[in-house]
């Protein structure tokens, strides 16, 4: 069964992957450094939002706390890749074996995914027993807890000051590969028996439980996988800018990633990816406007903050008029429509 499902639905991740490759090629053609960074940022957001989708999209439980896993991952990058000498002054409290560690960036990303998954397992074992709004708020408490620890544990995280010296990776390919991994992993999870069980539990909790689905366990599996993806994204985020602070991974990032998911449509993987691409383009345009454009002799610039206000407004409008998001729970597929109903989902419920 799963093989035929795989064949019917594999067009979705392939199409999404091609879209991402097209963005990478665009960066290559343009060849400017800031544009390269923009595309890298888009790939990172794809990783985060796809990670969010694995849990939120399949379980229907809104989580505000996933950026906590990105935070865990980001600090793994800081702990394992900064030169030992620099580490000694910024974070003197690290244990010796960690202090001497200096591993390549891809290894730190893998390690970060594992570390975040471990904590997702620990937090999830508790949080997944809750449902609906209580669960959402408990994930918020988790984020606040992680942020509070990382903002105060001075000897290990340098508290709220920036940890600098993380090797910066400027090439676009590692980020593309990581985004592709995230998309394919999310797709594979979505069509696996656990993913199907969780979506059944989302749409008809009573019937699903009666059919023998252990809902907390199904949610926990999704939570751990999405935690791992967020952790990987967090480490790569750290490598893309070379700095981490606890507030890099706090409400701002949580809001942006969640709005991308909502705007794209949290019911489908395509919604998650397209939400990132659409909102990132919008943000980029607003940024250009904030920086100012010259029309004739006068410079026209929007005041700072307009970007976020516009984002919030777009999100509210989309929720008002298209609550299922731009993709409306459908997935991208070839025009034949062979795969269009394979992940047939109704909007997530809580």
């Amino acid at each position, binding site marked *: 069964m799963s093989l035929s499902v795989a064949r019917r639905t594999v067009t979705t991740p392939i199409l999404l992957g091609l879209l991402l490759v097209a963005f990478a090629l665009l960066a290559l053609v343009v060849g400017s450094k800031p544009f390269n960074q923009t595309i890298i940022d888009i790939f990172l957001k794809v990783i985060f939002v796809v990670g969010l989708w694995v849990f939120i999209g399949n379980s*229907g439980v*809104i989580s*505000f706390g996933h950026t906590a896993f990105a935070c865990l991952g980001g600090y793994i990058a800081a702990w394992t890749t900064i030169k030992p000498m620099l580490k000694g002054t910024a974070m003197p409290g690290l244990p010796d074996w960690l202090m001497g560690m200096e591993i390549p960036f891809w290894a730190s990303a893998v390690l970060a995914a594992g570390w975040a998954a471990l904590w997702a397992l620990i937090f999830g074992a*508790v*949080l997944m*027993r*809750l*449902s*609906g*709004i*209580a669960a*959402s*708020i*408990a994930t*918020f*408490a*988790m984020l*606040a*807890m992680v942020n*509070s*620890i990382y903002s*105060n*544990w001075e000897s290990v995280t340098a508290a709220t000051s920036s940890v600098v010296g993380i090797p910066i990776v400027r090439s676009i390919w590692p980020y593309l590969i990581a985004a592709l991994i995230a998309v394919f992993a999310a797709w594979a999870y979505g069509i696996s028996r656990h993913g199907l069980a969780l979506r059944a539990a989302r749409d008809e909790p*009573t019937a699903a439980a009666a059919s023998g689905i252990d809902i907390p366990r199904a949610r926990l599996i999704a939570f751990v996988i999405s935690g791992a993806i967020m952790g990987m994204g967090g480490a790569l985020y750290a490598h893309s800018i070379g700095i981490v602070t606890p507030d890099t991974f706090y*409400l701002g990032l949580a*809001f942006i990633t*969640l*709005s991308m998911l*909502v705007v794209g449509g949290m019911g489908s993987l395509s919604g998650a990816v397209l939400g990132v691409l659409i909102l990132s383009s919008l943000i980029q345009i607003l940024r250009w406007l904030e920086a100012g454009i010259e029309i004739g002799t006068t410079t026209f610039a929007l*005041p*700072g*903050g*307009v970007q*976020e*206000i516009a*984002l*919030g*407004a777009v*999100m*509210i409008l989309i*929720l*008002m008029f298209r*609550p299922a998001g731009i993709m409306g729970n459908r997935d991208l597929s070839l025009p034949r429509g062979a795969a269009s109903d394979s992940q047939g989902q109704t*909007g*997530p*419920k*809580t």
Partner: protein
Amino acid sequence: MGSLLQVIFDAAALGSLYALAALGIALIFGVMRLVNFAHGDVIAFSVFALLWPSVDAVAVVFAGNLPWFLLIPFVLAIGAGLSVLSEIVVFRRFRRANPATMMIASFALGFVIRYFLLMLFSSRPKSISLLPALSQPVEIMGARIPLLQLITITVTIAVLLGLIAFLRRTRFGLEMRAAAENFTMARMLGVRANRVIMGAFALSGALAAAIALILGSQTGTANIMMGANVMLMAFIATVIGGMGSLAGAVLAGFLLGAVATVMQVILPPDARAFRDAFVYGAVILVLIFRPQGLLSARGTKERV
């Protein structure tokens, strides 16, 4: 003796703050199942309403120079007004939406309000002197208690008593309680839904403004993020108290204040910075054993 009294007053004052905020969240949740993430930003907005827009570090005071008997109603009206406005402009369109959609919409609205403030005032905290007379300490049985703490506690108790009277004794309060219990049924029996919801928003906004006044005079700064922490604690209080239960929200608010204050005292100095992390951890523990909250409200239980 004196220090014990001090701890008790600290706990009661912090608990009052959380209880007021939790009440503001629970009121709206009760009537329309909305977890209002914009609440914290209404708090911040109410403080900034006292200042002229400027990006300087020193606040340019505008309405803050009013005498206190005008200043307090002014701030309360600002909070209530913004809250009602948000209901009219945004939340009214979400009557049929599911709670998760509304929650995200309120999250977005809070973001809009916050960045609107950022645009006008910049993100730097500003020092303000709001009701400076309140920071004088008073001596009670050997403990030096800031006057503000006493006022916070008194105001909270007064607000709670007033609210109880309002909900129990007035027609509007009765309608509001009926709507919280079973909204559809209440509408069918002639409760005007929009009026009740607007009333709940106005009350919640005024409570947010009261918190703004207390926080503003306590810290002496205005910061666009100042409502975030209180709001988070208020959410947690409403969840622990049992979603939709007003008494539960208040009880849990005081409980959180007490736990946070006691932890501040008993934790070793090295661990004090992590007080909030311990509080959140304790909350998660409570939720394991009572996922439905301490006092679960009637009608919010999930039906099968």
